C-alpha cells in the first residue's frame, strides 16, 4: 500500500460509492424526518389548542362567577377592586395564563391583570382571523350582569383571558431534555453492546487467527485457533485447525490451543454494577430523609444512612481484597451483585431508619465486592504491557455509568417514584449476575488480589510528612467534598429550589461528563509538565471557587456550573494525587512496590468520602443548604491554602518518573 493510498484513506471525509450512498440516504432520511416532525407538531398543536381552550373557558367562567358574585352583593362594576390580584392568583395554578381583562362592548379595557393592558390591547382589537398570528390564545365569554350594575341596558361587557401560544409546545419542550438523555443512554448502551459483540466475535478471533496463520507461515504448526465463533471466521479457522493438526501429527508435534482473554466483558460488568447504584443518586437524600424523619430528624438521618454506605465500602474493599485470592473473580462478582441486589431491593421496601441502615450497608458491601472482583479480574487478565489498557477499560465503564446513572435514574424517579428506582437498580444488578457468567472469562481465575494497605505502608505514611499533607489536605477533602456536595447538598438544594428529580439527575450527570471530557487533557498536562502537586493545587482551587460561587449564589445555574467545576477539578486532581503520592513515597515504593501506598491513599479517600454526607447533613440541620455549601467551600479553600503552603516547603523531586497515574487511578 503506497503512502498516497494511506493518505487518501485517512483523509477527513470518507471516499467511495458506499459513503456517497450513505450520505445521500442520511440526508434523505433527515429531510423526511424533519417534514414528518413538522407535520406531527402542527397536528399536536391543533389538539393541544382544543385542550387549552377548554381549560381557558373553565378559568374564564371561574373569574366571571367571582365578578357576578361581587355584582350580586351590590358592588357596582366600576367599584370592583382586586381583579389583577385574582388573575395573579390564578397564574400560580396555570403559568400559561398571561392576562385577564374585563372589556366593554366598545372594546375599552376596564380592568386587567397579569400583563399591562398596553401589551395585549392590540391583540384584542385584531380580527378573529388574525388570532393565529397572535402570541396569545384568546378566550372570551360575556359577563351576564344586571343593568343596575352596569348602568347600561344594551351592551354588557365581556371577560377575555389570554394564554401563551408558545405553551402549546410545552409538553414537547418540557420533555426535550429527557428525550435527549434517553437518546444519549441508548447511544451509550448501543456502543457498549457493539463494542462487546465486535470484540468477542471479530477483533479477538481475527487477532488469534493472524497469530495462528503467522505460526503456519513460519512452518511451526504449534498453534490452534481456540477463539470459538460460529461465523465465517470460525468455520475458516476450523478448517485451518484440521490442517494444522494433521500436519503437526505428521511432524510429531502437539499443537496447543491459542486464545485471547475476553477483557472487554469487564467494561460492561463495571458499567452495570455502578449503574445499579447510581440510578438512585438524585433521590437518595430526600428518600432517606423521609424514611428517617421519625428517628433522627430527617437530614441527620439521611446523612448517617449515606455515610454508613460509604463507610461500608471503605471497610469492605481491603477485606474483600484479602479473601479475593481464595474466592476468585467470578464468584466474588456474583456474591457482590447478589448482595447489591438484596440491598437495593431492601432499600426500595425499607420502612424506617434502622432497616434502611442495614440495607444500605448491604449495598455498600455488594458494591465493594463487585469492585474488587472487577479489579482482580483485570489484574489477572493483563500483564505489565496491557494493564493500563485493561484498567482504562474498566474505568471507562465506570465513568459511563457515572454519567448515565443519575440522569436516567432522575427520569425514572420522576415518573415512577423513588422505590421503583431502587428496585430498578436491583434489577440491573440481577442482569449483571446473569451477564457475569458470559462476560467473565473462565480462563481468568482472578486470584491476583488488588493491593491492601499494609502496616509497613501505614508506617511509611506516618514518617512521610509530604504524603501526610497530601492525604490530609487534598485526598481526603476531595472525596469528602464529592460526597457532601454532589451526593447530598446538590439534590437537597435543587429540590428546595423547585427542580424536578430529572433536572437534578442532569445536573449530577454534568460531573461525570465534564470529568470524562477534561480528564484526558488534564492527565496529559500533568504527565508532560511533571507538576503533580501543582495539578492537585489547581484542582483544589477550582473546587473551592466553584463551591464558594454556589454558596454565595445558590441558584440552579450556578450550582450546575459548580458541579461542572467539581468534575474538572477532580479530573485534574485525582490522577495527579496518585502520581504525587508515588513520587512522595519513592523510598518505600522502591522496596515494596506501589500497591500498598495506593491502597492507603484509597482507604483515606474513602473514609473522607464517608464523612462527607454526615458533615453536609449536620450543616443543613443547622443552616440552609446554600449556607452549607458556602461553609463547605470555606473548608475547601482552607484545605487548599494549607496544602499549598505546607507542600511548598517540602522538597519534592519534580523530575522523578512515576508510574502512569491513569493505570493506577482505578485501583
Amino acid at each position, binding site marked *: 500500500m503506497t503512502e498516497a493510498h494511506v493518505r487518501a484513506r485517512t483523509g477527513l471525509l470518507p471516499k467511495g460509492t458506499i459513503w456517497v450512498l450513505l450520505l445521500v440516504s442520511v440526508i434523505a432520511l433527515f429531510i423526511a424526518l424533519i417534514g414528518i416532525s413538522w407535520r406531527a407538531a402542527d397536528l399536536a398543536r391543533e389538539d393541544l389548542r382544543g385542550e387549552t381552550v377548554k381549560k381557558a373557558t373553565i378559568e374564564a367562567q371561574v373569574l366571571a362567577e*367571582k365578578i357576578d358574585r361581587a355584582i350580586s*352583593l*351590590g*358592588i357596582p362594576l366600576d*367599584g370592583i*377592586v*382586586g381583579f389583577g*390580584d385574582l388573575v395573579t392568583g390564578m397564574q400560580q395554578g396555570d403559568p400559561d395564563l398571561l392576562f385577564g381583562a374585563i372589556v366593554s362592548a366598545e372594546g375599552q379595557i376596564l380592568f386587567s391583570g397579569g400583563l399591562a393592558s398596553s401589551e395585549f390591547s392590540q391583540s384584542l382589537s385584531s380580527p378573529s382571523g388574525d388570532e393565529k398570528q397572535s402570541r396569545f390564545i384568546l378566550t372570551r365569554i360575556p359577563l351576564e350582569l344586571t343593568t343596575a350594575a352596569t348602568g347600561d341596558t344594551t351592551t354588557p361587557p365581556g371577560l377575555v383571558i389570554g394564554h401563551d401560544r408558545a405553551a402549546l409546545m410545552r409538553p414537547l419542550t418540557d420533555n426535550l431534555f429527557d428525550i435527549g438523555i434517553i437518546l444519549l443512554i441508548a447511544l451509550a448502551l448501543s456502543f457498549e453492546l457493539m463494542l462487546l459483540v465486535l470484540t468477542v466475535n471479530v477483533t479477538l478471533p481475527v487477532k488469534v487467527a493472524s497469530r495462528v496463520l503467522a505460526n503456519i507461515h513460519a512452518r511451526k504448526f504449534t498453534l490452534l485457533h481456540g477463539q470459538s465463533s460460529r461465523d465465517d471466521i470460525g468455520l475458516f479457522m476450523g478448517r485451518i485447525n484440521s490442517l494444522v493438526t494433521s500436519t503437526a501429527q505428521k511432524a510429531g508435534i502437539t499443537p496447543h490451543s491459542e486464545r485471547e482473554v475476553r477483557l472487554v466483558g469487564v467494561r460492561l460488568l463495571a458499567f452495570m454494577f455502578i449503574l445499579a447504584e447510581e440510578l438512585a443518586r438524585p433521590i437518595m437524600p430526600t428518600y432517606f430523609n423521609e424514611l428517617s424523619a421519625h428517628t433522627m430528624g430527617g437530614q441527620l438521618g439521611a446523612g448517617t444512612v449515606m455515610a454508613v454506605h460509604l463507610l461500608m465500602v471503605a471497610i469492605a474493599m481491603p477485606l474483600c481484597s484479602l479473601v479475593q485470592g481464595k474466592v476468585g473473580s467470578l464468584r466474588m462478582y456474583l456474591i457482590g451483585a447478589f448482595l447489591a441486589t438484596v440491598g437495593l431491593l431492601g432499600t426500595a421496601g425499607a420502612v424506617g431508619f434502622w432497616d434502611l441502615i442495614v440495607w444500605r450497608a448491604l449495598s455498600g458491601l455488594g458494591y465493594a465486592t463487585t469492585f474488587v472482583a472487577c479489579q482482580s479480574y483485570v489484574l489477572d487478565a493483563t500483564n505489565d504491557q496491557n494493564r493500563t489498557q485493561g484498567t482504562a477499560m474498566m474505568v471507562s465503564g465506570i465513568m459511563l455509568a457515572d454519567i448515565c446513572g443519575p440522569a436516567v435514574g432522575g427520569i425514572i424517579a420522576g415518573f415512577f417514584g423513588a422505590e421503583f428506582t431502587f428496585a430498578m437498580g436491583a434489577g440491573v444488578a440481577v442482569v449483571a449476575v446473569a451477564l457475569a457468567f458470559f462476560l467473565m472469562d473462565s480462563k481468568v481465575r482472578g486470584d491476583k488480589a488488588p493491593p491492601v494497605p499494609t502496616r509497613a505502608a501505614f508506617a511509611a505514611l506516618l514518617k512521610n510528612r509530604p504524603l501526610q499533607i497530601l492525604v490530609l489536605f487534598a485526598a481526603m477533602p476531595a472525596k469528602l467534598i464529592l460526597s457532601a456536595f454532589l451526593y447530598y447538598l446538590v439534590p437537597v438544594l435543587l429540590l428546595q429550589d423547585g427542580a424536578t428529580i430529572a433536572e437534578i439527575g442532569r445536573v449530577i450527570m454534568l460531573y461525570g461528563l465534564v470529568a470524562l471530557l477534561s480528564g484526558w487533557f488534564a492527565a496529559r498536562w500533568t504527565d508532560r509538565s511533571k507538576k503533580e502537586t501543582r495539578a492537585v493545587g489547581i484542582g483544589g482551587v477550582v473546587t473551592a471557587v466553584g463551591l464558594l460561587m454556589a454558596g454565595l449564589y445558590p441558584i440552579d445555574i450556578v450550582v450546575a456550573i459548580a458541579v461542572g467545576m467539581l468534575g474538572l477539578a477532580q479530573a485534574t486532581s485525582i490522577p495527579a494525587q496518585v502520581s504525587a503520592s508515588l513520587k512522595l513515597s519513592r523510598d518505600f515504593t522502591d522496596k515494596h512496590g506501589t500497591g500498598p501506598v495506593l491502597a492507603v491513599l484509597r482507604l483515606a479517600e474513602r473514609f473522607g468520602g464517608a464523612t462527607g454526607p454526615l458533615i453536609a447533613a449536620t450543616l443543613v440541620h443547622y443552616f440552609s443548604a446554600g449556607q452549607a455549601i458556602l461553609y463547605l467551600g470555606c473548608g475547601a479553600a482552607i484545605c487548599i491554602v494549607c496544602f499549598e503552603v505546607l507542600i511548598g516547603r517540602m522538597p519534592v523531586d519534580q523530575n522523578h518518573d512515576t508510574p502512569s497515574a491513569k493505570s493506577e487511578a482505578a485501583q
Partner: protein
Amino acid sequence: MIRFLVFVLMVLMSVVPVSSAHAQTANSAPSPDHPFRIAMILWRGETKVEEGFRSYFHSRNIPVDFQVYNIDRNIAAIPDVIAQIRKNPPDLVYTWGTGVTMATVGRYDDVDPVRNISEFPVVFVMVSAPWKTGIAAPVGQTRPNVTGASHIAPLAAQINAIRAYRPMSHLGVVYNLQESNSVSNIADLKLLGEEMSFEVLAAPLGQTGEPDPARIPQAVTDLAKKGADFLYIGPDNFIGTYRDVLTDSGFANGLGTFSATELEVREGHAMFGLVSHYDLVGRLAASKAAAILMDGARPGDLPIETLNRFSYLIRLSAAQRLKLYPPLPLLDYAEIVQ
C-alpha cells in the same frame, strides 16, 4: 411580721379548700339533682360567648346550674358579687372580660385572698392580653386556680387583614387610657408598626379620669386630618360601648373601621374585622371548665389559649356607605354581613 404570718395563714386556708373542693367535684359525678354549680360574673349581660359556653355542657348532657351575676358595666359591684359567691359556694367561677377578671382574681403576683377569689377554680373569657395584664402568670410560673380563653387574633394577622382590604400606612386608634388591656394593645401596635412599616396615630381619652364619649367625634376628625387610612377598634370596653359613635364619626370623615372583636362588625357598623366567633370562644372556655369539673384537672395545668382560626368579617353596608368595596379575592373567604 404578724401581718405577714396572717397573710401566709390566709393563703394556706384559701388553698386547702380549693384542693379539697376540687377533689370532691372531680370524684362526684353530677346528676340532675346535684348539678355542677358555675357562677358567671358578666360585664354587660349574656352574649354569644355565654351561649356557646352553655351549649357545650348542654350538648354533652352535663347538668350545670348557672348563677349569673351581671354587674352591668359597674366594676365597683365586684366585691359584693364575690361576697355573694362565697355565701353560696360554686364549683367554678366564670368571668367575662379583662376588667371583671382582674377585679375578681387580681394580678398573679398581687392576690388579696380577701378581695380576690383564690379558693375556687376560675375560667375567664374575652381577656385580650392575659399575660400583659398580669392575670396570667409569666412563662415558667403557674397560677393554680386560673385558666381561660382569649379571643384576639395576633396583631400581625390583624394588620395583614387590614392590608388585604386596602394599603395601610397610618392606623388611627381612639382608646381608653383607663383600661390596661387597651393601653397594652396600643403599645404592642406601635412596636409592630416599626416592624411592619405603619404608624399608629393614637387618640387617647380619659387622661383625667373616666373618658367622655362626646370627645370621640373630634378625636376621629383629628385622626382623619392626620392622614389615618382606617380606624381601629381593639380590646377596649369603653370604645366597645360607644362603638356606633366611633363608626359614625368614621363615616363622616370617610374612614372605615377595622375591629378585632366580633360584635363591632356583626352588631355595630365597623366595616371589617378579623375576629373569633364569640360562640366558639365560649365553647373553648367550656372545654376547660369541663376538664376541671369532670376530669379533676388543675386550672393552672390547663393552657390559656386562643382559637387557632379566625373569621374575616365584612359589613357590606358600611363598605357601600364609604364606597370602599372589598377586593374580589377577599370575597372567596370573608363572611359578608349585610
